[in-house]
Protein backbone atom coordinates (compact mmCIF):
# COMPACT_ATOMS: atom_id res chain seq x y z
CA UNK A 1 0.00 0.00 0.00
CA UNK A 2 1.62 3.24 -1.09
CA UNK A 3 1.25 6.22 1.18
CA UNK A 4 -0.95 9.14 0.25
CA UNK A 5 0.37 11.36 3.01
CA UNK A 6 3.64 11.24 4.83
CA UNK A 7 4.43 13.54 7.72
CA UNK A 8 8.17 13.72 8.33
CA UNK A 9 9.46 15.04 11.62
CA UNK A 10 7.43 18.20 11.90
CA UNK A 11 7.64 20.53 14.88
CA UNK A 12 5.78 23.72 15.60
CA UNK A 13 5.76 25.93 18.63
CA UNK A 14 3.54 28.81 19.63
CA UNK A 15 5.27 31.35 21.86
CA UNK A 16 7.72 28.77 23.10
CA UNK A 17 5.07 26.09 23.68
CA UNK A 18 5.82 23.05 21.55
CA UNK A 19 2.44 22.03 20.16
CA UNK A 20 3.92 19.47 17.79
CA UNK A 21 7.25 17.88 18.57
CA UNK A 22 9.13 15.91 15.91
CA UNK A 23 6.03 14.12 14.74
CA UNK A 24 6.10 11.56 11.95
CA UNK A 25 3.44 9.26 10.60
CA UNK A 26 1.90 8.26 7.33
CA UNK A 27 -1.50 7.45 5.91
CA UNK A 28 -1.93 4.78 3.27
CA UNK A 29 -4.10 4.80 0.18
CA UNK A 30 -7.76 4.11 1.14
CA UNK A 31 -6.86 3.80 4.78
CA UNK A 32 -9.15 4.67 7.66
CA UNK A 33 -7.19 6.03 10.60
CA UNK A 34 -8.24 7.37 13.95
CA UNK A 35 -6.15 9.89 15.86
CA UNK A 36 -6.76 10.18 19.57
CA UNK A 37 -5.04 11.92 22.42
CA UNK A 38 -5.78 14.02 25.46
CA UNK A 39 -6.57 17.74 25.20
CA UNK A 40 -3.58 19.70 23.99
CA UNK A 41 -1.97 16.65 22.40
CA UNK A 42 -1.79 18.58 19.11
CA UNK A 43 -4.56 16.85 17.15
CA UNK A 44 -6.17 19.95 15.71
CA UNK A 45 -2.78 21.61 15.22
CA UNK A 46 -1.77 18.59 13.16
CA UNK A 47 -4.84 19.06 10.97
CA UNK A 48 -4.01 22.75 10.65
CA UNK A 49 -0.51 21.88 9.50
CA UNK A 50 -1.62 19.30 6.95
CA UNK A 51 -4.20 21.67 5.46
CA UNK A 52 -1.76 24.58 5.37
CA UNK A 53 -3.43 26.78 7.96
CA UNK A 54 -0.37 26.61 10.21
CA UNK A 55 3.18 26.40 8.89
CA UNK A 56 5.52 24.01 10.75
CA UNK A 57 8.88 25.30 11.99
CA UNK A 58 10.73 22.28 10.64
CA UNK A 59 9.86 19.04 8.93
CA UNK A 60 8.12 18.13 5.72
CA UNK A 61 4.83 16.78 4.50
CA UNK A 62 4.72 14.74 1.32
CA UNK A 63 1.59 14.17 -0.69
CA UNK A 64 0.49 11.56 -3.22
CA UNK A 65 2.33 9.50 -5.77
CA UNK A 66 4.61 12.33 -6.86
CA UNK A 67 5.71 13.12 -3.32
CA UNK A 68 4.76 16.79 -3.58
CA UNK A 69 5.73 18.85 -0.56
CA UNK A 70 2.76 20.58 1.04
CA UNK A 71 4.82 22.87 3.25
CA UNK A 72 4.98 25.83 0.87
CA UNK A 73 1.45 25.48 -0.44
CA UNK A 74 -1.52 27.64 0.57
CA UNK A 75 -4.74 26.27 2.05
CA UNK A 76 -6.44 26.70 -1.30
CA UNK A 77 -3.76 24.82 -3.21
CA UNK A 78 -3.75 21.96 -0.71
CA UNK A 79 -7.52 21.70 -0.92
CA UNK A 80 -7.28 21.64 -4.71
CA UNK A 81 -4.73 18.81 -4.51
CA UNK A 82 -7.41 16.74 -2.83
CA UNK A 83 -7.34 17.27 0.93
CA UNK A 84 -10.80 17.83 2.35
CA UNK A 85 -11.30 19.03 5.90
CA UNK A 86 -14.19 18.90 8.29
CA UNK A 87 -13.87 21.31 11.16
CA UNK A 88 -14.46 20.56 14.82
CA UNK A 89 -17.37 22.97 14.94
CA UNK A 90 -19.78 22.17 12.10
CA UNK A 91 -18.91 24.70 9.44
CA UNK A 92 -21.53 25.06 6.75
CA UNK A 93 -22.86 28.10 4.92
CA UNK A 94 -25.66 28.91 7.34
CA UNK A 95 -27.63 31.25 5.09
CA UNK A 96 -27.71 29.01 2.05
CA UNK A 97 -29.81 25.94 1.40
CA UNK A 98 -28.58 22.38 1.71
CA UNK A 99 -28.54 22.15 -2.08
CA UNK A 100 -26.56 25.36 -2.51
CA UNK A 101 -24.07 24.18 0.10
CA UNK A 102 -23.49 20.99 -1.84
CA UNK A 103 -23.46 22.67 -5.26
CA UNK A 104 -20.72 25.05 -4.21
CA UNK A 105 -18.56 22.18 -2.99
CA UNK A 106 -18.69 20.20 -6.24
CA UNK A 107 -15.35 19.54 -7.83
CA UNK A 108 -15.25 21.93 -10.78
CA UNK A 109 -13.65 25.19 -11.81
CA UNK A 110 -12.15 27.27 -9.04
CA UNK A 111 -11.12 30.32 -11.08
CA UNK A 112 -13.22 33.43 -10.68
CA UNK A 113 -14.01 34.09 -14.34
CA UNK A 114 -15.21 30.52 -14.76
CA UNK A 115 -17.38 30.71 -11.66
CA UNK A 116 -18.93 33.94 -12.91
CA UNK A 117 -20.30 32.26 -16.02
CA UNK A 118 -20.53 28.71 -14.67
CA UNK A 119 -23.55 26.61 -15.57
CA UNK A 120 -24.18 23.45 -13.56
CA UNK A 121 -24.58 20.32 -15.64
CA UNK A 122 -27.27 17.65 -15.30
CA UNK A 123 -24.66 15.22 -13.98
CA UNK A 124 -23.76 17.63 -11.24
CA UNK A 125 -27.38 17.93 -10.12
CA UNK A 126 -27.57 14.13 -10.08
CA UNK A 127 -24.34 13.97 -8.11
CA UNK A 128 -25.69 16.43 -5.52
CA UNK A 129 -28.79 14.31 -5.16
CA UNK A 130 -26.69 11.19 -4.65
CA UNK A 131 -24.61 12.86 -2.00
CA UNK A 132 -27.70 14.24 -0.32
CA UNK A 133 -29.15 10.76 -0.21
CA UNK A 134 -25.97 9.41 1.34
CA UNK A 135 -26.10 11.98 4.13
CA UNK A 136 -29.88 11.59 4.45
CA UNK A 137 -30.68 15.19 3.63
CA UNK A 138 -32.22 14.56 0.21
CA UNK A 139 -35.73 15.35 1.46
CA UNK A 140 -34.77 18.79 2.72
CA UNK A 141 -32.59 20.09 -0.07
CA UNK A 142 -34.24 23.50 0.04
CA UNK A 143 -33.95 23.99 3.76
CA UNK A 144 -31.61 26.74 4.96
CA UNK A 145 -28.54 25.11 6.47
CA UNK A 146 -28.75 27.27 9.59
CA UNK A 147 -32.06 25.60 10.49
CA UNK A 148 -30.60 22.08 10.54
CA UNK A 149 -29.92 20.21 13.77
CA UNK A 150 -26.36 19.97 15.01
CA UNK A 151 -26.03 16.38 13.79
CA UNK A 152 -27.48 17.24 10.40
CA UNK A 153 -24.98 20.09 10.04
CA UNK A 154 -22.14 17.67 10.76
CA UNK A 155 -23.50 15.41 8.05
CA UNK A 156 -23.97 18.26 5.64
CA UNK A 157 -20.35 19.22 6.12
CA UNK A 158 -19.28 15.66 5.42
CA UNK A 159 -21.55 15.77 2.36
CA UNK A 160 -19.84 18.94 1.17
CA UNK A 161 -16.51 17.17 1.43
CA UNK A 162 -17.91 14.26 -0.56
CA UNK A 163 -19.09 16.59 -3.29
CA UNK A 164 -15.60 18.05 -3.30
CA UNK A 165 -14.36 14.49 -3.88
CA UNK A 166 -11.01 14.64 -2.07
CA UNK A 167 -8.50 11.78 -1.95
CA UNK A 168 -7.88 12.42 1.74
CA UNK A 169 -10.58 13.34 4.18
CA UNK A 170 -9.61 14.92 7.50
CA UNK A 171 -12.50 14.72 9.91
CA UNK A 172 -12.28 16.57 13.21
CA UNK A 173 -14.63 15.19 15.89
CA UNK A 174 -17.45 14.08 13.61
CA UNK A 175 -19.49 12.52 16.38
CA UNK A 176 -19.57 15.53 18.70
CA UNK A 177 -23.11 16.45 19.65
CA UNK A 178 -24.69 13.43 17.98
CA UNK A 179 -27.17 10.95 19.34
CA UNK A 180 -26.13 7.31 19.64
CA UNK A 181 -27.89 6.21 16.49
CA UNK A 182 -26.42 9.14 14.59
CA UNK A 183 -22.97 8.08 15.77
CA UNK A 184 -23.46 4.57 14.49
CA UNK A 185 -24.60 5.95 11.15
CA UNK A 186 -21.61 8.29 11.00
CA UNK A 187 -19.20 5.46 11.75
CA UNK A 188 -20.78 3.37 9.01
CA UNK A 189 -20.60 6.27 6.58
CA UNK A 190 -16.92 6.93 7.32
CA UNK A 191 -16.07 3.25 6.92
CA UNK A 192 -17.94 3.24 3.62
CA UNK A 193 -16.05 6.32 2.46
CA UNK A 194 -12.68 4.82 3.29
CA UNK A 195 -13.22 2.22 0.60
CA UNK A 196 -12.61 4.82 -2.09
CA UNK A 197 -10.38 7.34 -0.30
CA UNK A 198 -8.23 7.79 2.78
CA UNK A 199 -9.99 9.05 5.88
CA UNK A 200 -8.41 10.42 9.04
CA UNK A 201 -10.70 10.83 12.03
CA UNK A 202 -9.78 12.83 15.09
CA UNK A 203 -12.02 11.85 17.96
CA UNK A 204 -12.32 11.77 21.74
CA UNK A 205 -15.05 9.22 21.98
CA UNK A 206 -13.68 5.71 22.57
CA UNK A 207 -16.91 3.93 21.66
CA UNK A 208 -16.95 5.72 18.36
CA UNK A 209 -13.34 4.73 17.64
CA UNK A 210 -14.23 1.15 18.48
CA UNK A 211 -17.02 1.26 15.92
CA UNK A 212 -14.60 2.49 13.29
CA UNK A 213 -12.48 -0.58 13.90
CA UNK A 214 -9.30 0.77 12.38
CA UNK A 215 -5.68 1.58 13.10
CA UNK A 216 -5.31 4.15 15.87
CA UNK A 217 -2.57 6.72 16.37
CA UNK A 218 -2.25 8.07 19.90
CA UNK A 219 -0.80 11.54 20.20
CA UNK A 220 0.66 12.96 23.37
CA UNK A 221 2.39 16.30 23.82
CA UNK A 222 2.80 16.71 20.12
CA UNK A 223 4.30 13.37 19.17
CA UNK A 224 3.15 9.85 18.45
CA UNK A 225 2.89 7.80 21.61
CA UNK A 226 1.62 4.55 20.17
CA UNK A 227 0.17 3.16 16.99
CA UNK A 228 -1.83 0.03 16.21
CA UNK A 229 -5.34 -1.27 16.58
CA UNK A 230 -7.41 -0.07 19.49
CA UNK A 231 -6.93 -3.16 21.61
CA UNK A 232 -3.20 -2.99 21.11
CA UNK A 233 -2.83 0.66 22.06
CA UNK A 234 -5.21 0.41 24.98
CA UNK A 235 -2.91 -2.22 26.50
CA UNK A 236 0.13 -0.01 26.06
CA UNK A 237 1.35 1.14 29.46
CA UNK A 238 2.33 4.60 28.34
CA UNK A 239 -1.08 5.16 26.79
CA UNK A 240 -2.85 4.01 29.91
CA UNK A 241 -0.72 6.34 31.95
CA UNK A 242 -1.34 9.51 29.99
CA UNK A 243 -4.77 9.03 28.60
CA UNK A 244 -6.96 6.03 29.19
CA UNK A 245 -6.17 5.56 32.83
CA UNK A 246 -7.28 9.01 33.88
Amino acid sequence: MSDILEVRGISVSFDGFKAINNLSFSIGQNELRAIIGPNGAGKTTLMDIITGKTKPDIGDIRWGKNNISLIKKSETQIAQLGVGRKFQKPTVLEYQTVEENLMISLKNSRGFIQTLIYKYTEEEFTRVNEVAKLIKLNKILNKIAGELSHGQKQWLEIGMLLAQDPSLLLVDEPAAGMTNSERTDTATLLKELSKTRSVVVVEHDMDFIRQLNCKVTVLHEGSVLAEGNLDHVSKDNKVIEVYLGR
Partner: protein
Amino acid sequence: MLKLIKTMDFKTICFCLFFILFSLIITLLSDLIFGSISTSFVKVLGKTLMLCLAAIALDLVWGYCGILSLGHFAFFALGGYLIGMWLMYERTKEIIIQAFAEQLLPPTPSEIKEAIGIQIFGVVGGSEIPSIWIFADYLFIHLFLIIFIPGLLALIFGWLAFRSRVTGVYLSILTQAMTLALSLYLLQNDSGLRGNNGLSGLQNIPGFTSFPQSMVSILFLWASTLALILGFIIATFITKSKLGKLIQGIRDDEDRIRFLGYNVETYKLFVFVISAIMAAIAGALYYPQAGIVNPTELAPIASIYLAVWVSIGGRGKLIGAVIGAAFVSLISSFFTSGQIPDLNLGFIIISWVDWWLIILGLSFVIVTLFTPGGLISAFENIYKRSFGR
Protein backbone atom coordinates in the same frame (compact mmCIF):
# COMPACT_ATOMS: atom_id res chain seq x y z
CA MET B 1 -34.85 26.16 -10.90
CA LEU B 2 -35.95 27.44 -14.30
CA LYS B 3 -38.98 28.95 -12.68
CA LEU B 4 -36.72 30.80 -10.26
CA ILE B 5 -34.62 32.27 -13.06
CA LYS B 6 -37.78 33.45 -14.80
CA THR B 7 -39.07 35.23 -11.72
CA MET B 8 -35.67 36.83 -11.24
CA ASP B 9 -35.70 38.17 -14.74
CA PHE B 10 -39.17 39.46 -14.05
CA LYS B 11 -37.86 41.39 -11.07
CA THR B 12 -35.07 42.94 -13.13
CA ILE B 13 -37.48 43.83 -15.92
CA CYS B 14 -39.82 45.48 -13.41
CA PHE B 15 -36.88 47.41 -12.00
CA CYS B 16 -35.84 48.66 -15.44
CA LEU B 17 -39.38 49.55 -16.50
CA PHE B 18 -40.01 51.38 -13.26
CA PHE B 19 -37.00 53.62 -13.66
CA ILE B 20 -37.56 54.24 -17.37
CA LEU B 21 -41.16 55.20 -16.62
CA PHE B 22 -39.97 57.36 -13.75
CA SER B 23 -37.55 59.26 -15.98
CA LEU B 24 -40.21 59.63 -18.66
CA ILE B 25 -42.65 61.16 -16.21
CA ILE B 26 -39.98 63.49 -14.85
CA THR B 27 -39.07 64.51 -18.40
CA LEU B 28 -42.71 65.32 -19.13
CA LEU B 29 -43.10 67.29 -15.91
CA SER B 30 -39.80 69.14 -16.29
CA ASP B 31 -39.26 72.67 -17.53
CA LEU B 32 -38.75 71.29 -21.01
CA ILE B 33 -42.42 70.31 -21.47
CA PHE B 34 -44.98 71.04 -18.75
CA GLY B 35 -42.76 72.85 -16.32
CA SER B 36 -44.32 71.49 -13.13
CA ILE B 37 -41.00 70.69 -11.48
CA SER B 38 -37.93 72.83 -11.35
CA THR B 39 -34.63 72.06 -13.02
CA SER B 40 -32.91 71.92 -9.66
CA PHE B 41 -35.33 69.24 -8.49
CA VAL B 42 -34.66 67.22 -11.63
CA LYS B 43 -30.99 67.42 -10.68
CA VAL B 44 -31.76 66.25 -7.15
CA LEU B 45 -33.55 63.24 -8.61
CA GLY B 46 -30.72 62.51 -11.01
CA LYS B 47 -28.24 62.72 -8.16
CA THR B 48 -30.41 60.42 -6.07
CA LEU B 49 -30.29 57.80 -8.81
CA MET B 50 -26.51 57.88 -8.64
CA LEU B 51 -26.55 57.55 -4.87
CA CYS B 52 -28.70 54.46 -5.47
CA LEU B 53 -26.00 53.10 -7.78
CA ALA B 54 -23.37 53.76 -5.12
CA ALA B 55 -25.63 51.92 -2.66
CA ILE B 56 -25.83 48.93 -5.03
CA ALA B 57 -22.03 48.99 -5.21
CA LEU B 58 -21.75 48.98 -1.42
CA ASP B 59 -24.40 46.28 -1.09
CA LEU B 60 -22.38 44.09 -3.41
CA VAL B 61 -19.32 44.16 -1.16
CA TRP B 62 -21.07 44.45 2.17
CA GLY B 63 -24.44 42.73 1.85
CA TYR B 64 -23.15 39.93 -0.34
CA CYS B 65 -19.46 39.56 0.40
CA GLY B 66 -19.43 40.74 4.02
CA ILE B 67 -16.79 43.43 3.50
CA LEU B 68 -18.10 46.53 5.24
CA SER B 69 -16.34 49.24 3.29
CA LEU B 70 -16.66 52.59 4.99
CA GLY B 71 -14.64 54.27 2.28
CA HIS B 72 -16.76 53.92 -0.81
CA PHE B 73 -17.18 57.65 -1.16
CA ALA B 74 -13.47 57.81 -1.91
CA PHE B 75 -14.16 55.96 -5.16
CA PHE B 76 -17.36 57.92 -5.73
CA ALA B 77 -15.62 61.28 -5.35
CA LEU B 78 -12.61 60.14 -7.37
CA GLY B 79 -14.99 59.44 -10.24
CA GLY B 80 -16.31 62.98 -9.79
CA TYR B 81 -12.83 64.50 -9.75
CA LEU B 82 -11.79 62.61 -12.86
CA ILE B 83 -14.76 63.75 -14.93
CA GLY B 84 -14.54 67.18 -13.29
CA MET B 85 -10.98 67.71 -14.52
CA TRP B 86 -12.06 67.30 -18.11
CA LEU B 87 -15.23 69.38 -17.66
CA MET B 88 -13.42 72.24 -16.01
CA TYR B 89 -10.48 72.25 -18.39
CA GLU B 90 -12.57 72.16 -21.52
CA ARG B 91 -15.03 74.72 -20.26
CA THR B 92 -12.23 77.10 -19.27
CA LYS B 93 -10.59 76.57 -22.63
CA GLU B 94 -13.82 77.51 -24.40
CA ILE B 95 -14.16 80.70 -22.39
CA ILE B 96 -10.55 81.66 -23.00
CA ILE B 97 -10.74 81.05 -26.73
CA GLN B 98 -13.84 83.21 -26.83
CA ALA B 99 -12.05 85.95 -24.91
CA PHE B 100 -9.06 85.80 -27.25
CA ALA B 101 -11.34 85.93 -30.28
CA GLU B 102 -11.83 89.65 -29.72
CA GLN B 103 -8.10 90.26 -30.17
CA LEU B 104 -6.58 90.79 -33.58
CA LEU B 105 -3.88 88.13 -33.35
CA PRO B 106 -5.05 84.52 -32.79
CA PRO B 107 -3.55 83.13 -29.56
CA THR B 108 -0.80 80.50 -29.62
CA PRO B 109 -1.47 77.14 -27.87
CA SER B 110 0.97 78.00 -25.11
CA GLU B 111 -0.81 81.31 -24.50
CA ILE B 112 -4.10 79.43 -24.17
CA LYS B 113 -2.52 76.95 -21.79
CA GLU B 114 -1.09 79.71 -19.67
CA ALA B 115 -4.44 81.45 -19.50
CA ILE B 116 -6.18 78.22 -18.54
CA GLY B 117 -3.61 77.67 -15.79
CA ILE B 118 -4.16 81.11 -14.32
CA GLN B 119 -7.92 80.79 -14.63
CA ILE B 120 -8.15 77.39 -12.90
CA PHE B 121 -5.29 77.53 -10.41
CA GLY B 122 -5.20 81.21 -9.56
CA VAL B 123 -7.42 80.44 -6.62
CA VAL B 124 -4.70 78.32 -4.98
CA GLY B 125 -1.97 80.76 -5.94
CA GLY B 126 -0.65 78.87 -8.93
CA SER B 127 -0.64 79.33 -12.64
CA GLU B 128 1.09 76.19 -13.86
CA ILE B 129 -1.12 73.33 -14.95
CA PRO B 130 -0.06 70.37 -12.75
CA SER B 131 1.14 67.26 -14.54
CA ILE B 132 -1.84 65.19 -13.40
CA TRP B 133 -3.95 67.33 -15.73
CA ILE B 134 -1.98 66.10 -18.71
CA PHE B 135 -4.95 64.22 -20.17
CA ALA B 136 -7.57 66.80 -19.20
CA ASP B 137 -7.99 67.76 -22.86
CA TYR B 138 -9.03 64.25 -23.88
CA LEU B 139 -12.50 63.08 -22.89
CA PHE B 140 -11.96 59.43 -23.81
CA ILE B 141 -8.82 59.10 -21.75
CA HIS B 142 -10.65 60.59 -18.80
CA LEU B 143 -13.61 58.27 -19.27
CA PHE B 144 -11.13 55.42 -19.15
CA LEU B 145 -9.44 56.89 -16.08
CA ILE B 146 -12.80 57.00 -14.25
CA ILE B 147 -12.73 53.22 -14.38
CA PHE B 148 -9.00 52.72 -14.17
CA ILE B 149 -7.88 54.89 -11.26
CA PRO B 150 -10.54 53.98 -8.66
CA GLY B 151 -10.23 50.37 -9.85
CA LEU B 152 -6.47 50.47 -9.34
CA LEU B 153 -6.83 52.09 -5.93
CA ALA B 154 -9.29 49.37 -4.89
CA LEU B 155 -7.02 46.70 -6.32
CA ILE B 156 -3.95 47.86 -4.43
CA PHE B 157 -5.82 48.57 -1.20
CA GLY B 158 -7.78 45.33 -1.39
CA TRP B 159 -4.76 43.26 -2.27
CA LEU B 160 -2.81 44.55 0.72
CA ALA B 161 -5.75 44.21 3.11
CA PHE B 162 -7.14 40.85 2.01
CA ARG B 163 -3.73 39.25 1.63
CA SER B 164 -3.00 40.01 5.27
CA ARG B 165 -6.41 38.53 6.14
CA VAL B 166 -7.70 41.76 7.61
CA THR B 167 -11.42 41.29 8.12
CA GLY B 168 -14.42 42.67 9.93
CA VAL B 169 -14.23 45.86 11.87
CA TYR B 170 -10.48 46.24 11.30
CA LEU B 171 -11.05 46.34 7.57
CA SER B 172 -13.81 48.91 8.00
CA ILE B 173 -11.44 51.11 9.97
CA LEU B 174 -8.80 50.74 7.26
CA THR B 175 -11.28 51.85 4.61
CA GLN B 176 -12.16 54.85 6.75
CA ALA B 177 -8.48 55.67 7.00
CA MET B 178 -8.16 55.39 3.24
CA THR B 179 -10.94 57.88 2.51
CA LEU B 180 -9.73 60.24 5.24
CA ALA B 181 -6.16 60.14 3.94
CA LEU B 182 -7.32 60.85 0.42
CA SER B 183 -9.55 63.66 1.62
CA LEU B 184 -6.71 65.27 3.59
CA TYR B 185 -4.39 64.96 0.64
CA LEU B 186 -6.87 66.64 -1.67
CA LEU B 187 -7.34 69.44 0.85
CA GLN B 188 -3.78 70.58 0.27
CA ASN B 189 -3.40 73.41 -2.19
CA ASP B 190 -0.49 71.74 -3.95
CA SER B 191 -2.34 68.48 -4.56
CA GLY B 192 -3.01 69.84 -8.04
CA LEU B 193 -6.78 69.62 -7.62
CA ARG B 194 -7.44 73.09 -6.21
CA GLY B 195 -7.34 72.15 -2.52
CA ASN B 196 -10.47 72.83 -0.54
CA ASN B 197 -12.04 74.71 -3.46
CA GLY B 198 -12.38 71.48 -5.34
CA LEU B 199 -13.55 71.51 -8.92
CA SER B 200 -16.51 73.73 -9.70
CA GLY B 201 -18.75 74.83 -12.54
CA LEU B 202 -19.16 71.20 -13.51
CA GLN B 203 -22.78 71.74 -14.51
CA ASN B 204 -21.58 73.53 -17.66
CA ILE B 205 -20.98 70.83 -20.18
CA PRO B 206 -18.40 71.80 -22.83
CA GLY B 207 -19.90 71.69 -26.29
CA PHE B 208 -23.39 71.95 -24.84
CA THR B 209 -23.12 75.53 -23.62
CA SER B 210 -25.89 76.64 -25.93
CA PHE B 211 -28.20 74.11 -24.25
CA PRO B 212 -30.23 75.41 -21.33
CA GLN B 213 -29.67 73.76 -17.94
CA SER B 214 -33.21 72.36 -18.09
CA MET B 215 -32.12 70.31 -21.08
CA VAL B 216 -28.78 69.31 -19.58
CA SER B 217 -30.47 68.15 -16.39
CA ILE B 218 -32.81 65.89 -18.34
CA LEU B 219 -29.90 64.45 -20.33
CA PHE B 220 -28.12 63.63 -17.11
CA LEU B 221 -31.28 62.19 -15.61
CA TRP B 222 -31.47 59.75 -18.50
CA ALA B 223 -27.77 58.97 -18.35
CA SER B 224 -28.16 58.29 -14.64
CA THR B 225 -31.19 56.07 -15.20
CA LEU B 226 -29.27 54.10 -17.80
CA ALA B 227 -26.26 53.73 -15.51
CA LEU B 228 -28.44 52.62 -12.60
CA ILE B 229 -30.27 50.04 -14.72
CA LEU B 230 -27.01 48.71 -16.13
CA GLY B 231 -25.48 48.59 -12.67
CA PHE B 232 -28.49 46.71 -11.36
CA ILE B 233 -28.38 44.19 -14.20
CA ILE B 234 -24.66 43.58 -13.74
CA ALA B 235 -25.02 43.26 -9.97
CA THR B 236 -27.97 40.88 -10.40
CA PHE B 237 -25.94 38.81 -12.82
CA ILE B 238 -23.03 38.61 -10.40
CA THR B 239 -25.14 37.75 -7.38
CA LYS B 240 -27.11 35.06 -9.21
CA SER B 241 -24.02 33.36 -10.62
CA LYS B 242 -22.00 30.67 -8.92
CA LEU B 243 -19.59 33.42 -8.00
CA GLY B 244 -22.45 35.21 -6.27
CA LYS B 245 -23.14 32.16 -4.12
CA LEU B 246 -19.45 31.88 -3.40
CA ILE B 247 -19.09 35.43 -2.16
CA GLN B 248 -22.13 34.91 0.04
CA GLY B 249 -20.36 31.83 1.31
CA ILE B 250 -17.30 33.95 2.05
CA ARG B 251 -19.54 36.32 3.99
CA ASP B 252 -20.98 33.45 6.05
CA ASP B 253 -17.87 31.36 6.53
CA GLU B 254 -14.64 32.33 4.90
CA ASP B 255 -12.70 29.27 6.07
CA ARG B 256 -15.23 26.81 4.69
CA ILE B 257 -14.86 28.32 1.22
CA ARG B 258 -11.09 28.43 1.54
CA PHE B 259 -10.85 24.76 2.48
CA LEU B 260 -13.14 23.84 -0.39
CA GLY B 261 -10.28 24.97 -2.59
CA TYR B 262 -11.39 28.46 -3.59
CA ASN B 263 -8.98 31.34 -3.40
CA VAL B 264 -10.97 33.58 -1.10
CA GLU B 265 -8.69 36.60 -1.54
CA THR B 266 -9.13 36.63 -5.32
CA TYR B 267 -12.90 36.59 -5.01
CA LYS B 268 -12.93 39.36 -2.44
CA LEU B 269 -10.61 41.43 -4.59
CA PHE B 270 -12.79 40.94 -7.66
CA VAL B 271 -15.95 42.06 -5.88
CA PHE B 272 -14.20 44.96 -4.20
CA VAL B 273 -12.76 46.27 -7.48
CA ILE B 274 -16.04 45.86 -9.39
CA SER B 275 -17.84 47.66 -6.61
CA ALA B 276 -15.29 50.49 -6.55
CA ILE B 277 -15.66 50.96 -10.31
CA MET B 278 -19.44 51.08 -9.98
CA ALA B 279 -19.14 53.70 -7.26
CA ALA B 280 -16.73 55.72 -9.42
CA ILE B 281 -19.09 55.69 -12.40
CA ALA B 282 -21.90 56.78 -10.11
CA GLY B 283 -19.73 59.64 -8.88
CA ALA B 284 -18.78 60.65 -12.42
CA LEU B 285 -22.46 61.14 -13.22
CA TYR B 286 -23.35 62.63 -9.83
CA TYR B 287 -20.94 65.55 -9.68
CA PRO B 288 -21.79 67.15 -13.04
CA GLN B 289 -25.33 67.36 -11.65
CA ALA B 290 -24.13 68.68 -8.32
CA GLY B 291 -21.87 71.20 -10.07
CA ILE B 292 -19.01 70.94 -7.60
CA VAL B 293 -16.76 68.32 -6.08
CA ASN B 294 -14.43 69.08 -3.18
CA PRO B 295 -12.50 67.17 -0.52
CA THR B 296 -15.35 67.31 2.03
CA GLU B 297 -17.19 64.86 -0.23
CA LEU B 298 -14.65 62.24 0.77
CA ALA B 299 -15.03 62.86 4.49
CA PRO B 300 -15.43 59.58 6.38
CA ILE B 301 -18.97 60.51 7.42
CA ALA B 302 -20.20 60.40 3.79
CA SER B 303 -19.28 56.75 3.44
CA ILE B 304 -20.87 55.98 6.79
CA TYR B 305 -24.12 57.56 5.60
CA LEU B 306 -23.99 55.32 2.57
CA ALA B 307 -23.72 52.27 4.83
CA VAL B 308 -26.63 53.57 6.92
CA TRP B 309 -28.80 53.94 3.80
CA VAL B 310 -27.99 50.43 2.68
CA SER B 311 -28.73 48.94 6.05
CA ILE B 312 -32.01 50.88 6.45
CA GLY B 313 -33.08 49.72 2.99
CA GLY B 314 -31.95 46.15 3.49
CA ARG B 315 -28.50 44.82 2.81
CA GLY B 316 -28.03 41.59 0.96
CA LYS B 317 -30.80 42.64 -1.37
CA LEU B 318 -30.05 44.94 -4.29
CA ILE B 319 -33.51 46.50 -4.31
CA GLY B 320 -33.21 47.09 -0.58
CA ALA B 321 -30.07 49.13 -1.13
CA VAL B 322 -31.78 51.18 -3.85
CA ILE B 323 -34.84 51.84 -1.69
CA GLY B 324 -32.70 52.80 1.27
CA ALA B 325 -30.53 55.22 -0.67
CA ALA B 326 -33.46 56.77 -2.53
CA PHE B 327 -35.73 57.32 0.45
CA VAL B 328 -33.20 58.35 3.01
CA SER B 329 -31.23 60.68 0.77
CA LEU B 330 -34.41 62.32 -0.58
CA ILE B 331 -35.91 62.76 2.86
CA SER B 332 -32.56 63.98 4.09
CA SER B 333 -32.29 66.68 1.43
CA PHE B 334 -35.93 67.60 2.17
CA PHE B 335 -35.30 68.08 5.89
CA THR B 336 -31.96 69.81 5.54
CA SER B 337 -33.08 72.16 2.76
CA GLY B 338 -34.42 74.60 5.36
CA GLN B 339 -37.76 74.85 3.57
CA ILE B 340 -39.74 73.31 6.39
CA PRO B 341 -40.69 75.81 9.09
CA ASP B 342 -39.35 75.15 12.58
CA LEU B 343 -41.72 73.43 14.94
CA ASN B 344 -42.33 75.41 18.11
CA LEU B 345 -43.35 73.12 20.94
CA GLY B 346 -43.22 75.91 23.51
CA PHE B 347 -40.47 74.45 25.66
CA ILE B 348 -38.31 73.59 22.68
CA ILE B 349 -38.03 74.74 19.10
CA ILE B 350 -37.45 71.92 16.71
CA SER B 351 -35.30 73.09 13.86
CA TRP B 352 -35.42 70.32 11.29
CA VAL B 353 -31.96 70.94 9.93
CA ASP B 354 -30.52 69.94 13.30
CA TRP B 355 -33.15 67.42 14.27
CA TRP B 356 -32.90 65.48 11.05
CA LEU B 357 -29.75 63.71 12.25
CA ILE B 358 -31.60 62.61 15.37
CA ILE B 359 -34.48 61.29 13.29
CA LEU B 360 -32.04 59.46 11.03
CA GLY B 361 -30.22 57.96 13.99
CA LEU B 362 -33.48 56.88 15.60
CA SER B 363 -34.78 55.28 12.44
CA PHE B 364 -31.48 53.45 12.06
CA VAL B 365 -31.82 52.08 15.59
CA ILE B 366 -35.47 51.16 15.03
CA VAL B 367 -34.74 49.36 11.76
CA THR B 368 -31.81 47.50 13.29
CA LEU B 369 -33.90 46.43 16.28
CA PHE B 370 -37.17 45.52 14.63
CA THR B 371 -36.37 44.57 11.09
CA PRO B 372 -32.68 43.70 10.80
CA GLY B 373 -33.21 42.87 7.14
CA GLY B 374 -34.11 46.50 6.49
CA LEU B 375 -37.22 48.10 5.01
CA ILE B 376 -37.31 45.64 2.14
CA SER B 377 -37.68 42.64 4.44
CA ALA B 378 -40.36 44.50 6.40
CA PHE B 379 -42.27 45.01 3.12
CA GLU B 380 -41.76 41.38 2.22
CA ASN B 381 -43.08 40.21 5.57
CA ILE B 382 -46.17 42.41 5.26
CA TYR B 383 -46.70 41.13 1.73
CA LYS B 384 -46.31 37.52 2.84
CA ARG B 385 -48.74 38.04 5.70
CA SER B 386 -51.40 39.60 3.52
CA PHE B 387 -51.10 37.41 0.42
CA GLY B 388 -48.91 34.50 1.40
CA ARG B 389 -51.59 32.28 2.87
